[in-house]
């Protein structure tokens, strides 16, 4: 199994490729949490794309442009991305020349019965990350916290106190619908 180190991060390049290919997505996971001020981060980039044939084709094209391959599997199975391969996985992990990218069909929003929040729902109450002249949709902090509460892996439990604290601080700072907007 190939377990080589991922290449140095170049998330600007990943996001530029997504934009060039007009991929519709919302950022989730550690980078989204970091956009709200979290200091606890991992190096991959998690995104939740609109789950349509057309959009997954665009996403596959963007990942191919970045030399994306399936990671942490036997060498002969490190397949390049295509829309059907992506569509067959709720969560898929890709190694690209700009770093690791996880593609999620949705993030957990209810434990029993199990439900996930998909692109459309996440976009509805998303925020916008403004950096390098680009505006990137980011899942709401509430959605991120909820997903970690439900996923409940050790790393989620580790991340939650900081995220809850950030949410409280933002609530204190922001009058409803005003606050940090510009």
């Amino acid at each position, binding site marked *: 199994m190939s377990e080589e180190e991922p290449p140095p991060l170049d998330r600007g390049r990943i996001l530029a490729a997504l934009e060039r290919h007009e991929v519709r997505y919302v950022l989730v996971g550690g980078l989204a949490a970091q956009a709200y001020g979290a200091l606890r981060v991992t190096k991959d980039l998690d995104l939740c794309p609109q789950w349509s044939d057309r959009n997954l084709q665009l996403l596959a094209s963007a990942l191919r442009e970045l030399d994306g391959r399936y990671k942490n599997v036997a060498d002969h199975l490190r397949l390049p991305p295509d829309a059907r391969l992506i569509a067959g996985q709720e969560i898929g992990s890709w190694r690209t020349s700009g770093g690791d990218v996880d593609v999620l069909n949705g993030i957990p929003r209810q434990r029993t019965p199990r439900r996930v929040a998909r692109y459309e729902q996440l976009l509805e109450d998303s925020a916008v990350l403004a*950096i390098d002249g680009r505006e990137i949709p980011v899942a709401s902090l509430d959605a991120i916290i909820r997903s970690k509460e439900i996923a409940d892996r050790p790393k989620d439990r580790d991340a939650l106190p900081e995220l809850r604290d950030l949410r409280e601080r933002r609530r204190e700072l922001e009058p409803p619908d005003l606050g940090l907007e510009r």
Partner: protein
Amino acid sequence: MADDRKILEPRFSTWEEWDEWTNAHAVPDTEPNQTVLMGTGGRPATREELEAYLAEHKARMEREAREAGLELG
């Protein structure tokens, strides 16, 4: 959707600065691959399941390419 979304202004003005900071401070992700295949109720796939899925996909792609008279690189 009316675009009245909040604008988040990160502490970094460029991705280069942000990536540099992340490389220096990121918590290593020591968990195994978290791939979840469709229809498995959200359960992470074992390596064997994932590789079987990828092998099946690869075989299907090769078969379809042969039928279309193409050759995969």
